[in-house]
């Protein structure tokens, strides 16, 4: 891990003869060095634009049943083919992609936020708070997730539905459940980083100049600890997309006729031999999303790590 490397070589490297750039610009300059990350930004932007604006370009209903067009491969009428009820897969993927991506990013945000908060508190505490928070983390890690999910969903499904409507309620619940059960690895990472960084010389130096704990965390420790968090968070997005499909599979997620990417994959599995396109398109979309997010995370970590020379 980045935090375990000692005072980095960048300190000794001779300063290049260049005017100091603003931090944002500097990060972008460093990020651009990672070719795959830049390409991934393009791919992800395309996917996001596709699911957000695709509906305008391809205004086909997602639930038009047409038995004459069952299990057709890609054609001009149905660019992504059809499923076993003759429903257009492109339209379904555009619709489902919005939900899948939104669930992925929102759950990632929730998990990272809780994780960083808990990790930072534990890492900075020198008294009882650290062990207590880590006990809490261990407790959450040891919770059997599936029974807990069942419980949460039975308790809150109907009340959330009443307030936010069917889809909104399920969305909130799934984001909360996935995010709320996946923050523990992030918290542990952040705590470990904090424990190591808070004893570093530059932090000592800042503290000796009278910096408050808040300042230390915000300006000195957290930026240095973010690298692994970003990587963990990018993995979290893919895990959330897949977790959502697991929940739908168990009948606890979105209703079965809402074609999230995970749901499409699940429906396609019985027909892999005759209609591979049905599984390949949503599978490919999940694959591309997860891969590009991972590369972007990789690039960001490189760009944000102040100890790395680029």
């Amino acid at each position, binding site marked *: 891990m980045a935090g375990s490397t000692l005072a980095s070589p960048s300190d000794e490297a001779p300063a290049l003869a260049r005017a100091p750039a603003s931090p944002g610009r500097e990060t972008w300059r460093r990020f651009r060095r990672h070719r795959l990350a830049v390409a991934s930004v393009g791919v992800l932007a395309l996917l996001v634009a596709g699911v957000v604006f695709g509906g305008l370009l391809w205004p086909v209903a997602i*639930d*038009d*049943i047409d*038995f004459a067009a*069952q299990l057709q491969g890609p054609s001009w009428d149905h660019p992504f083919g059809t499923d*076993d*009820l003759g*429903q257009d897969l492109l339209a379904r993927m555009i619709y489902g992609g919005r939900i899948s991506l939104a669930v992925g990013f929102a759950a990632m945000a929730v998990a990272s936020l809780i994780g960083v908060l808990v990790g930072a508190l534990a890492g900075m505490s020198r008294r009882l708070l650290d062990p207590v928070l880590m006990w809490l983390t261990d407790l959450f890690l040891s919770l059997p997730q599936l029974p807990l999910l069942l419980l949460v969903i*039975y308790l809150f499904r109907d009340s959330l539905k009443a307030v936010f409507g*069917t889809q909104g309620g399920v969305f909130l619940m799934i984001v909360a459940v996935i995010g709320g059960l996946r923050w523990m690895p992030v918290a542990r990472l952040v705590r470990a980083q904090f424990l190591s960084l808070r004893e570093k010389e530059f932090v000592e130096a800042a503290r000796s100049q009278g910096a408050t704990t808040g300042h230390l965390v915000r300006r000195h420790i957290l930026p240095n600890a973010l690298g692994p968090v970003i990587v963990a968070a990018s993995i979290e997005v893919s895990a959330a997309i897949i977790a959502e499909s697991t929940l739908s*599979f*168990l*009948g606890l997620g979105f*209703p*079965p*006729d809402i074609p999230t990417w995970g749901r499409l994959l699940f*429906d396609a599995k*019985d*027909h892999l*031999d*005759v209609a591979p396109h049905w599984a390949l398109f949503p599978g490919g979309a999940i694959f591309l999303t997860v891969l590009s997010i991972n590369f972007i995370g990789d690039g960001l970590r490189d760009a944000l790590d102040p100890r790395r020379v680029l």
Partner: protein
Amino acid sequence: MDERDLRGLIGRVKDGRLSRRAFVQRMVAVGLTAPMAGLMLAGNDVAMAADIRSGYKPTKAGGGGALKLLWWQAPTLINPHFAVGTKDQDASRIFYEPLAAWDPDGNLVPVLAASIPSKENGALAADGRSVVWTLKPGVKWHDGKPLTADDLVFTWEYARDPATAAVTAGSYKDCKVEKIDDLSVRVLFDKPTPYWCDAYVGIVGMVLPKHLFGPYSGAKSRDAPQNLAPVGTGPYRFVEFRPGDIVRGERNPDYHLPNRPYFDTVEMKGGGDAVSAARAVLQTGEYDYAWNMLIEDEVLKRLETGGKGRVDVVYGGKLEFLLLNATDPNVEVDGERASITTKHPAFSDPKVAQAINLLVDRKSIQTYIYGRTGKATANTVNGPERFVSKNTSFAFDPARANALLDEAGWKKGPDGIRAKDGKKLKLLFQTSINAPRQKTQAIIKQAAAKAGIEIELKSVTGSVFFSSDPANPDTCTHFYADMEMYAYSMTQADPAIWLLMYASWEVAQKANKWQGRNVVRWRNDAYDKAYNAAQSELDPVKRAALLIKCNDLAVSENVVPLIHRAEVSAVGAALTAPRSGWDNDLSFLPDWYKEA
């Protein structure tokens, strides 16, 4: 006398409970000529009615090699009276036999009985309070001891004893059995019982040997070594049993039917899943027979193209149906939703229920989802033929459905969804997770949307949906939704128990921990009356007419039958395997053979 009565009569002739002569006499009495009556019988396959056993070709017992059966759920014990699920019942049927079995048309075929009791042969009392069963002489248990009436009396005592905890207790607890002589017993009923053929028949009827199980009756029943090493009268003798894995048997040389059985050994292998079992029979030919192919027909057709085997379909009483909740699932009364003190805001109007019926495209569901494994139907009772109503029909007619909803006062709003008195026509539709069911849901939802009904779909994992947990609100018997769909099997060739599903005293509710059979919570006085009348009606024709009336009443309102589903198996190309949808898959195992 109307067409239904006639069909009932003809059915009776078919299964031998009414002689041809008696039928012709009755027809003449209502003004038909005798030849016309004879033609009616011929036109209904009676003249040609073939015995399921008559197709057997081998001329000597044995010599058929090994018969390899594949059950993708493995049997765990081989005592028919403890059998949980068909896997154990089927394994038991290799070794044990009942007095009579049900054939594919729902008629009785004697197995250990010398003949089927009837009024004509005097075995069936005119008051419906007793029946005499006579054993075939000379039948021996696998250990050489003779089968006698004592074994029948013992089986009754064994199964009805609550301490034995037999799953078949229900079939034996309401009757009394007394020995007449060494080969015959009399079964006595408290009240006139038109359905007298429950005990000793089919799945629940397998007879146990008194000399082996005698010491293990009652509380010690689970300790009997024979629970794992059966000694019966069946076509094959026990060789080996590894619970959860394999059952082996060898040919019984003393078997009581001539020239049977054909195979020298039998092996029932358990485990795996339906698709891999289908593959082992249809594609690779490793096994001769695989049971319960719960697979979409498309997949089966692809496997079948190899030519190593075929898909065999027999119809029993399995029905896929849609229920429209008669009570309001969104109102909680006394800790219970869908309480019978409430009325469903939409379905309490029969017109809305009829509209839903017209919006279900059964033809497409059959053609594109179930294929050969199901038939579209408008009846809740789909067999045996003598109980099937001809008065019902189904249609897919969204225009008529729209008109009905307009008539009923549900007006379309600006968003296209109908509403009445400020209540929108939004319905929650639940079922278990199973690919064909989700497709059916999608088809119904789309058609309903065109008629201005918004349906929200919900699917629940099967182990929850079909559990009997009173604390879980997602089970099918709680029915906390507006509509739900599942399949249920009629296990007897008689609809009396099946039709309890719509009787008002059977409503599933909090008071009975949702164990009642009437899940739809539909209550109707006319139905209750017809049902109760049928329960004590001894004339089979009148009884059939009453039961048909029950069917017609039920399907006219909140019950929407969809698909009459078949029992589907994979059978090797060379194997001839007669079976019946009303009995175990292996109920006619002695008659199985392979074409050389």
